[in-house]
């Protein structure tokens, strides 16, 4: 679904992405973790086609949609109009309403974005991404600003949407537990490349304390440079 070969992005002398290779299969849920400044967001922006200064080869098949950390709702458009923004096909409104229904926000369709709670705004942002029927869904730390309870319900929502629509997903996060709970494969970004890759076979919903999850958590934290005792 997405293939990158030798992806490089420099800011001045520093190569934030340094000849990075990445493959995401159709329908695969990939989580990417990394320390701040490791280039997670840079990679996501490159995949979204937002970075023109990135070099290397990048092939992305089909429609790409993005949900950002800040929901980026257009404040002067009501929720429904945000979701349908840029949809040109006839019946856009019906499709947009259905997407809002799916994320459980149907009754807020006529609300102004500034009146939404953080979780509601993120749902609207997800609906806007989904309504485009993406084959690759990029999620840039979309849950990091939410409170713990809202985050858990958002995790469930994202999983159920993913299971229904089966887009390939790249979730950028700094939360190891989030990655462990959601992804088929967890990548660790370090020194501008994929430093580590771990597949998770455990069926969802996953037990946080399952031995294989515990072991993988220790391993991933070690990859991130956090000693086991200080793990979360």
């Amino acid at each position: 679904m997405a293939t990158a070969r030798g992806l490089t992005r420099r800011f001045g002398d520093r190569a934030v992405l340094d000849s990075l290779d990445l493959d995401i299969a159709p329908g695969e849920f990939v989580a990417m973790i990394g320390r701040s400044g490791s280039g997670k967001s840079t990679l996501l922006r490159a995949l979204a086609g937002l970075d023109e200064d990135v070099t290397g080869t990048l092939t992305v098949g089909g429609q790409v949609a993005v949900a950002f950390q800040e929901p980026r709702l257009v404040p002067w458009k009501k929720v429904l109009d945000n979701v349908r923004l840029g949809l040109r096909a006839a019946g856009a409104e019906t499709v947009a309403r259905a997407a809002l229904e799916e994320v459980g926000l149907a009754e807020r369709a006529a609300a102004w974005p500034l009146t939404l709670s953080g979780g509601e705004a993120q749902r609207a942002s997800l609906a806007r991404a989904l309504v485009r029927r993406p084959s690759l869904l990029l999620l840039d730390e979309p849950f990091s600003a939410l409170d713990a309870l809202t985050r858990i319900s958002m995790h469930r929502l994202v999983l159920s949407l993913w299971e229904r629509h089966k887009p390939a997903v790249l979730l950028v996060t700094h939360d190891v537990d989030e990655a462990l709970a959601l992804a088929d494969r967890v990548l660790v970004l370090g020194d501008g490349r994929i430093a580590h890759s771990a597949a998770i076979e455990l069926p969802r919903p996953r037990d946080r304390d399952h031995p294989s999850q515990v072991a993988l958590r220790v391993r991933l934290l070690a990859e991130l440079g956090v000693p086991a005792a200080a793990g979360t």
Partner: protein
Amino acid sequence: MRLVSPVLLVGLWQLLSATGVLPPSKLVSPVSIVHTAYTLITTNNPAYGTLQYSLLVSGERWGIGFSIGIVIAVLLATLTGLSRVAEVCFDPIVQVLRSIPLLGILPLFIVWFGIGELPKDLIVLLGAFFPMYINTFAGIRSVDPKLGELGRILGLSRWELVRHIALPGSLPGVFTGLRLSVVGSLLALVVGEQINANAGLGFMINQAESFLQNSIIMVALIVYAILGLLADWIVRTTERKALAWRGEFTQ
């Protein structure tokens, strides 16, 4: 409630006038201003006609200059706000012209355009243009670039970006500009009308000044003030409707 303090002030003023503390040669009493206004409305003065005729003449000058001024300002600011090339071409010129004191240009306008309506309309136009241009430009540039990026991801065309993101996002600036334009153009109107006019509120003021009729001057000033308040009220009402999306934290 907001009317209490102005009403008290007028009461105090009337009291001071009635007791002779404020001599009528300096400041006439509110009662005699009302009386003068009534006389101006009901009698057709050979020099400047009735008050409503003067108001009509001034209102027309203001309407023409103001509306043309803001239309040009919005169009030009949209152009320079959206395009760096247009900004480099036009914005420096506007900035240079803006630094010339507007009212100082008037004698030159009379040399160029004579003493008819044109120089008066033009000075009002400029009074409306500059605040409108500057605030609309700033409004467009203040739109969050992240929303522009979002528009690109959503596949918006250039025109759709302008229509859905840039223009609505600039509206707060546009309304600030409108309110300042009302003030600026009224100021320009007052000055423009006092030079070489033969009708209108400014002309009425000039005539009254020659005959030391300061109650007429007061009436004309009050009419100007009412014009300004009215226009400001219209702008604010429209603003509340158009910017309802941010209402939650401004009200």
